[in-house]
């Protein structure tokens, strides 16, 4: 070991003592990492879950063949779901609504908020395309009655209609509604709703999971929106777990997720 590293390590230890944190050397930490048992089939499942929830239907099919991992959702349903998602992302909201109803009319019937957001997106697209009269008519006939039922819908409606008041929407306070991110937001809401309806057909595993006392830690990560892909949640959890451990210990961290490089504790 070079003198430099010896000094660095000593400094780290001194700093840790000052804050009474436990120091875990790289060597000790690597031993702990090696003791962790990660099953290959679990990683395969994680990857499959990502492919399926993100809609990579061909890749999921190939992965099933190459790795023998069974997807937890019928792959045939991915294509339909992705078609809906893509329609919203491209601004074809009417088309998307029709497709959702073809899949399962109950999805929109039982989810007034989703339906409102889709209609709102439709209004946004009309405004974007400069169809002012059509937009006003649509807002009054389709959206206003829903706003009467629900205060937060009304506020969102007012905000959307405000787009019409500005000649230069790119500079107006509600201009972000016209941003691509608004479409993506609506699209992922529809995506999640369809996934939920599909997994309900498969059973109520989250609710059961949460009620069984023996359930593993952090299964609840996915309990809220069970159909977000698990991989991003686990990555967030890694960031969280590291910051939690930071409070008590100095140890080698992974700061760059995409290269997974273990870094020596910062001095």
């Amino acid at each position: 070991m070079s003198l430099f590293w010896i000094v660095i390590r000593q400094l780290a230890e001194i700093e840790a003592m000052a804050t009474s944190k436990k120091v875990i050397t790289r060597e000790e930490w690597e031993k702990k990492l090696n003791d962790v048992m990660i099953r290959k089939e679990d990683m395969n499942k994680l990857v499959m879950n990502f492919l399926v929830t993100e809609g990579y239907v061909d890749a999921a099919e190939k992965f099933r063949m190459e790795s023998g991992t069974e997807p937890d959702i019928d792959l045939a349903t991915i294509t339909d779901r992705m078609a809906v998602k893509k329609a919203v992302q491209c601004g074809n909201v009417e088309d998307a609504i029709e497709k959702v109803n073809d899949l399962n009319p109950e999805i929109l019937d039982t989810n007034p908020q989703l339906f409102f957001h889709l209609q709102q997106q439709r209004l946004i697209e009309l405004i974007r395309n400069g169809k002012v009269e059509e937009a006003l008519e649509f807002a009054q006939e389709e959206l206003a009655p829903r706003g009467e039922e629900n205060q937060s819908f009304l506020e969102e409606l007012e905000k959307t209609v405000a787009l019409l008041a500005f000649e230069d929407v790119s500079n107006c306070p509600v201009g972000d509604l016209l941003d691509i991110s608004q479409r993506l937001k609506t699209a992922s809401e529809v995506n999640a709703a369809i996934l939920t309806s599909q997994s309900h057909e498969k059973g109520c595993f989250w609710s059961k999971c949460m009620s069984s006392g023996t359930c593993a830690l952090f299964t609840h990560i996915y309990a809220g929106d069970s159909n977000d892909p698990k991989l991003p949640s686990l990555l967030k959890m890694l960031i969280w777990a590291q910051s939690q451990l930071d409070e008590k210990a100095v140890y080698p961290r992974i700061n760059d997720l995409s290269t997974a490089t273990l870094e020596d504790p910062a001095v």
Partner: protein
Amino acid sequence: MGSNNTNKNQDLGLYFLEMARASSSMGVEDEKEESPMELNTINSSGGFLVVSPDKLSVKYTSVNLHGHDVGVVQANKPAPVKRLIYYFEIYVKDAGAKGQIAIGFTSETFKMRRQPGWEANSCGYHGDDGLLYRGQGKGDTFGPTFTSNDTIGGGINYASQEFFFTKNGAVVGAVFKDIKGPLFPTIAVHSLNEEVQVNFGQKKFAFDLKEYEAQERMKQQMTIEKISLPPNVSHRLVRSYLLHYGYEDTLNSFDLAGKSTVPPISFAQENGFDEQDIVYALNQRKTLRQLIRNGEIDAAFAKLHNWYPWIVQEDKSSTCFLLHCQKFIELVRVGALEEAVKYGRVELAKFFGLDEFENLVQDCVALLAYEKPQESSVGYLLEDSQREIVADMVNAMILSTNPNAKDFHGCLHSYLERLLRQLTACCLERRSMNGDQGEAFRLHRVLNSGKKGKC
């Protein structure tokens, strides 16, 4: 090949040898802890109270004179810690003369003639004044008083490190838990005819514990979900995983699809991602994986002899050993038992007596003993995961021939795996610093909790 490389090669082989053996005992290890089931009749303040024969209720039978004749009784076991929440309840059958009933938690050395909360290392919610006592003489304003016919609950939330109490099914409040070590559920009675029944979960609780747990989990989830990730990091990790293990067809479909999403996902590597290194021998790795997954071990051997002769040149290496074992297993799978015996004599017998190989050889040979080997104790050998381990080993061996391969771990673990190891290690470390309190993190259960048939 230099000796350095040979060493690396052996280490890699041994790693997978261990995996192959470990898979026989990789059942999910549940951490079972004993829970309190009844009251401890031995270590209670006898003389002042009577515990019923079922050890689930107590009654104060004398006239109290001072603060050192409290009738205290602990549960027979401390509250289990390896979970999110521990909780128990009492039902006040009779508030007696003064209603000086308390519920709480105490340490093992607690003085059994004092109210929980009056002494250090204890905490108690008292019925006569509704105050919460935490080891100081004076109580803190906490909740309502409680009396006959009330159901009172006491709990420990290990995630937030808090005690909490309930009255008739509603949370009264929570306080920081500053006591270390095992804690016993404790009840106290302190005036004539006070009678209390305790419920350690044998009966339904008045409080909706499941709902409370769900809410606590949700709170933590909210915090975590708010964390933002660098753009496309999940895509990148999945991609490097596919590259690492040589899932070439999946990779091609994935890349193709990535180009047509809205917005398209670019994998341009701005941070010097060492992609060139893992594209290394991608097609050969894919081919070998397919052969092994199909059980065509002879063909895999032939390809290896052709492409990477030095990987299979040493016939007593772990690599050759695992391939030979797999060949043997495949013969058993198709019922070619005679051939299997012959093959075993030629190729496996030489590994008998070598420590690191012995267990696996024995397990393989044991397959012959069963009419239905799948259902036997060595049935794990016939599972797909065993083929996968052999395929992963060959994959790692080939990766290690890459002159640019940086280190041993690079050949073994994908980025994804390194992150999952780090996550698990962080959770375990933090938990062990917390006196092993709270739930353990197990990726396996996180991923498998959604399986059908569990509902």
